[in-house]
């Protein structure tokens, strides 16, 4: 069962992120601003507009615990915004990139964030207390093309990246002084920064939307050839499963639970994948049922609303009763969906709600 709500914010949304208490959402309406909206009573109201970037903002992430927003843009810059009183104050992060930045994500412990860029490098930034600013370390020379997606493993050290050269790579981003040296865990011996732990060469086309499962056991990413790849046990002995589906390629994926994954993409419809007990993944269904054809052309999805939708869903997980207040949102996308973000309370492992934003 899925309840869906639609919110029209702008004609085209590049990326979005939710605040820790899930009442505010920050997104980029396809220009160089960040709009922050708050859900007051039963309407969305525009609270702030953050102007600092010169070009379109390609990635936004809102940290759960420290309430910071990081934004990266095509103008090679990144800002970390801190909320002081009621204003958002930007801090420039020197990324040392010479091409556009494409994606960003806070690490699980929120002391680092990773930026993927068109300069074929990944930038990992951490906060230096002594100098009171953000320092970046680059992972160079390992990628052959632009880095389109980054994802942190729950252990805060491993980082997976996808690139337009079709490969997914896993790196170690251990930084002395920031990450505690954990000799008891003894997971990976290569604790050097930028050490490539694995390279997955499964796709011949561009790869997007990489994510780790909540326990960090499984890695999933989507390729432009309408296939989705699941890899178990990346560190020790990777074993891969690929699923080819007959619809248009996915742009982004999200692990709802350890065994369920949602993919969104050019098909304007979220697609659910589930794993059974033996660990075999298969595609289950689309979340939006197609309405009976209202017009002659049957391509894409339903034509219910007009432009720009932010769409969130509430799903009832199999084993838990929902405690949070139901926030009904509904609707459908008319154009490609570019980004899917979980709406989760801190500490939850099963994502019950997520929102997607797109280009309609």
């Amino acid at each position, binding site marked *: 069962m899925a309840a869906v709500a639609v919110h029209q914010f702008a*004609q*085209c949304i*590049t990326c979005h992120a939710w605040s820790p208490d899930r009442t505010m959402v920050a997104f980029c309406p*396809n220009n160089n601003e960040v709009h922050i909206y708050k859900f007051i009573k039963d309407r969305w109201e525009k609270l702030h507009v953050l102007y600092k970037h*010169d*070009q*379109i903002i*390609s990635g936004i992430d809102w940290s759960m615990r420290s309430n910071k927003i990081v934004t990266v843009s*095509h*103008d*090679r810059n990144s800002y970390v915004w801190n909320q002081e009183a009621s204003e958002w104050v930007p801090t420039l992060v020197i990324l040392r990139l*010479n*091409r*556009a930045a*494409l994606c960003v994500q806070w690490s699980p412990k929120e002391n680092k964030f990773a930026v993927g860029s*068109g*300069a*074929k490098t990944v930038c990992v930034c951490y906060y230096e207390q002594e100098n009171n600013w953000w320092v970046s370390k680059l992972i160079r020379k390992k990628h*052959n*093309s*632009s880095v389109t997606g980054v994802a942190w493993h729950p252990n805060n050290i491993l980082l997976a990246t996808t690139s*337009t*050269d*079709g490969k997914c790579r896993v790196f170690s981003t251990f930084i002395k002084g920031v990450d505690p040296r954990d000799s008891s865990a003894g997971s990976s011996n290569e604790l050097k920064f930028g050490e490539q732990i694995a390279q997955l060469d499964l796709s011949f*086309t*561009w790869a997007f939307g990489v994510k780790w499962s909540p326990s960090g056991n499984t890695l999933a990413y989507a390729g*432009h050839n309408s296939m989705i790849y699941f890899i178990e046990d990346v560190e020790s002995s990777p074993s891969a499963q690929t699923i080819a589906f007959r619809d*248009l*390629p996915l*742009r982004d994926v999200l692990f709802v639970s350890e065994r369920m994954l949602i993919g969104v*993409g*050019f098909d304007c419809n979220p697609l659910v994948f589930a794993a059974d007990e033996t660990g075999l993944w298969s595609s289950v269904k689309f979340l939006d049922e197609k309405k009976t054809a209202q017009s002659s*052309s049957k*391509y*894409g999805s339903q034509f219910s609303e007009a432009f720009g939708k932010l769409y969130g869903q509430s799903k009832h997980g199999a084993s838990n009763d929902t405690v949070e207040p139901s926030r009904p949102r509904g609707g459908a996308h*008319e*154009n*490609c969906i*570019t980004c899917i973000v979980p709406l989760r309370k801190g500490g939850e492992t099963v994502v019950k709600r997520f929102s997607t934003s797109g*280009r*309609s």
Partner: protein
Amino acid sequence: MANTLRLYLTCIRNTLEAAMCLQNFPCQEVERHNKPEVELKTSLELLLNPVLICRNEAEKCLIESSINSIRISMKVKQADELENILAKKFLRFLSMRAEAFQVLRRKPVQGYDISFLITNYHCEDMHKHKLIDFIVQFMEDIDKEISELKLSVNTRGRLVATEFLKQFI
């Protein structure tokens, strides 16, 4: 005759649906620039394989795609000299006014009669299925237009000749 046209157009439509999965992608070669990769062809990994759909030797359609743009080039049927001239003039007329069409390219690709360039910005502004409908409709209409033009030229020529030669009777 109509059957093959249907099949041809359906094939093109399906190919376009798959190929028109475009996204915003900043240039890898030059900082702060955003160019249609299919025109530049500098980074080979960003280009997809071009697809050529031929109806017969005279009519074909080339679809080249990349990560942020797609180029569709068409060669229309030209049976005789007259159709050749008519097609050339008509398509040149359209290409000159490419600004109004937005997705039309001012010069056709070498070896073809007319070309379209669709970028991710067009996909953001307009619905993808409507763009595909437009292209397919265009292909259907071109044939009709050229036949009509040829018919009217022939009719007019006949009328003028009849009138002119009347004076010699």
